[in-house]
């Protein structure tokens, strides 16, 4: 495939198809996450990147032999490994017999949350989720370190040229977006707070919220969007999310329990669990939304700088 644009779109379709597969496999939380993250954010980032690096592959540079060797050894090994696996869908597989039954049977009594995935994510294995939030935060900081424009460069850009707003040209898009934005944001909040009762949670909510902001910035220009959502504020908000999460854990320490032990928050353990889960999901949502906005704004900002420089030279 020579045309990278086609490659990126196909990759987005692959993510969307796998999201559908996840729904078919009854993994609904995963499906919503994969659809929002893999199909949406990932494709968006790749499209911005290929705009900056070039649309077509220059040459057919291949290392087919090494690749084929590695792939056949790895693939062969994996297929060899599947021969002893429990059959697909079997109910007696060790994975379904050992740890999972307690999650399925007891999680409601112990945490008061209907969505088992949220119960595990936010209570039983809450520390993994802290790690996950820190991973996305690290990526956001890394992207900032690599491609954020230095403050002086941003001030130099002339206001007219930098405002790649399309709204003068696409009136219908502008009106539709303005009508849609509040609903998208509302949906994000719904997903955030309803994660206990249905598919959803902090992570998905954060991504959907950032998608709304990105939509706004695509149509009304990065400068306008930056005036709505300040870069510094977003950075600090991302840090705030992790600190909220960590503080929830530290409060448990202070009240006499282990780290991230919600039973000690209030007198009633179940209410404590609800509060704890609510707080950390909020922390996750804050950090994820801010980080996604940081990443996408950094990429778009770099693209605009590049285009400004080209226009300036031309």
């Amino acid at each position, binding site marked *: 495939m020579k045309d990278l644009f086609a490659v990126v779109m196909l990759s987005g379709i692959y993510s969307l198809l796998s999201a559908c597969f996840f729904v078919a*496999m009854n993994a609904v939380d995963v499906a919503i996450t994969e659809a929002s993250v893999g199909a949406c954010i990932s494709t968006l980032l790749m499209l911005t990147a290929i705009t900056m690096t070039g649309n077509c592959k220059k040459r057919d540079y291949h290392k087919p032999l090494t690749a084929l060797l590695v792939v056949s050894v790895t693939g062969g090994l994996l297929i060899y490994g599947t021969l002893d*696996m429990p059959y697909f869908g079997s109910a007696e597989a060790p994975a*379904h017999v050992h740890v999972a039954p307690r999650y399925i049977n007891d999680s409601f009594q112990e945490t008061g949350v209907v969505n088992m995935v949220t119960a595990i994510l936010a209570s039983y294995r809450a520390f993994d989720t802290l790690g996950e939030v820190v991973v996305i935060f690290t990526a956001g900081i890394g992207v900032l370190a690599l491609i954020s424009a230095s403050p002086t460069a941003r001030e130099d850009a002339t206001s007219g040229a930098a405002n790649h707003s399309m709204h003068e040209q696409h009136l219908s898009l502008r009106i539709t977006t303005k009508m849609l934005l509040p609903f998208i944001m509302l949906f994000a909040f719904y997903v955030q707070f309803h994660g206990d009762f249905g598919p959803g949670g902090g992570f998905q909510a954060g991504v959907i919220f950032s998608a709304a902001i990105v939509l706004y910035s695509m149509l009304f220009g990065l400068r306008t969007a930056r005036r709505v959502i300040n870069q510094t504020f977003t950075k600090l908000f991302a840090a705030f999310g992790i600190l909220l999460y960590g503080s929830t854990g530290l409060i448990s320490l202070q009240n006499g329990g282990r780290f991230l032990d919600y039973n000690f928050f209030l007198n009633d353990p179940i209410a404590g669990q609800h509060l704890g889960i609510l707080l950390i999901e909020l922390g996750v949502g804050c950090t994820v939304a801010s980080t996604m906005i940081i990443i996408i704004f950094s990429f778009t900002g770099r693209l605009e700088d590049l285009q400004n420089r080209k226009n300036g030279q031309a």
Partner: protein
Amino acid sequence: MLMGLYNYWIVVILMMIGLYIVIAHGNLIKKIVGLNIFQTSVFILYISIAKIDGDTAPILTEGVNHYSNPLPHVLILTAIVVCIATTALGLALAVRIKEAYGSAEEEDIQKKDNKEC
């Protein structure tokens, strides 16, 4: 046996396609696309492990007894985050490399590096 394991074999083939793209192609963006496909296929593997015949989504509902295994779902949620984090960082690096070297092809970059040494 074929009927019992076909799901896993398809996943393995998808993984190998992704891995092949990463190693064989020279364009930096395409490598990242390949990496993405590789990782997404691993997610499909995990979710296949989680499935039980005749189950439903792991959300407590009236009148349902048979649920899917929720633990792999949790693991994959984290893994998806890791995947997007790596992709974002990789793409940022690719953009910077293109600006610094003038090309996003592995061959060109190595030629320029060899000239310098």
